[in-house]
């Protein structure tokens, strides 16, 4: 029972966030959009956290910039574009799908397919070799085998 209670508490605990009270916008709709955008932007200091999660001062500055852009009337994609213009595609946690990232996106799938085909082809070849018919034994060879198997060494 205590265990279940612990699990329940852990699962419903609010996620840790780095957003400070003084950053939160008055307009809840704008604030929700800002949080959603922040979760998609990489903190370049830590590089593996979003700016929503990171405590770095640069992350805080970028969170504030995003909120300023939204308050100024930018759409979500305009606000994101503002940041990408200055920091490049790497600031997006999800790499954009364009010509230069095509290899990144479909590379793994291609290699997997190539690997599966490779295994299939190899297996087919191997089975072919094993299933090749063996020439039947001549009478002489049969006699030698019988002799060996019955324990009499020949000559």
């Amino acid at each position: 029972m205590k265990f279940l209670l612990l699990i329940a508490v852990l699962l419903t605990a609010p996620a840790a966030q780095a957003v400070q009270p003084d950053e939160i916008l008055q307009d809840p709709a704008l604030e929700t959009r800002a949080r959603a955008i922040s979760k998609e932007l990489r903190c370049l200091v830590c590089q593996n956290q979003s700016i929503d999660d990171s405590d770095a001062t640069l992350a805080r500055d970028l969170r504030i910039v995003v909120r300023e852009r939204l308050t100024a009337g930018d759409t979500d994609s305009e606000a994101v574009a503002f940041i990408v213009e200055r920091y490049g595609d790497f600031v997006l946690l999800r790499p954009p799908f364009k010509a230069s990232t095509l290899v990144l996106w479909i590379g793994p799938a291609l290699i997997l397919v190539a690997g599966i085909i490779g295994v299939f082809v190899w297996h087919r070849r191997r089975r072919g070799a094993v299933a090749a018919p063996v020439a039947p034994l001549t009478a002489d060879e049969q006699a030698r085998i019988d002799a060996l198997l019955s324990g009499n060494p020949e000559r």
Partner: protein
Amino acid sequence: MRPMTAIPIALFAVIAAVFGVYLWQVGPGGKDISQLPSAMIDKPAPQFDLPAIAGSPDGPDTLRTPGLKTADLKGRVSLVNVWASWCPPCRIEHPILMTLAKEGVTIYGINYKDRPEDARRFLRDLGNPFTRIGVDQKGRAAIDWGVYGYPETFVVDASGRIRYRHVGPINPGQVDSIIRPLLKQAAGAKTASGKDGGK
């Protein structure tokens, strides 16, 4: 050699070659792979107008260095160095900036989130290589430049375009292998009007 044996070996050789070239580029005085490529390369420097560092009321270390704005970047090749007195790598890099300034390189500074008295003391103690310094109290100008690590140094050509961004302190090896060649290259570049860049 049967194709089934040759193909994995060839694949390995290709991947090893790619990694080998990459490793060879990264070495002392070579590329720093933790540096992100700047999104602003070959774009005009952002619009900004930053005031000078506030002078001290008493006078002895009042800086006479003027502030920095976008228009100041036109007309000559320059280095723009983003620094702060609280940033230890900036301190370590500073003598290199002094050396470059003595050789005649134009160096502008952006003082990031610093207190004026600390900035003045830093320059008084370590020397002032900057012909202009803009104070970026909130860090907003730095964001417009795409700055994420301190110090950062930008090579800006005579038409005010960003040619290169160096993240972290410039170490002595990189002055000769990266900075000087880039300054030469930027000096040789044509401005937008087709005339030779200023020397």
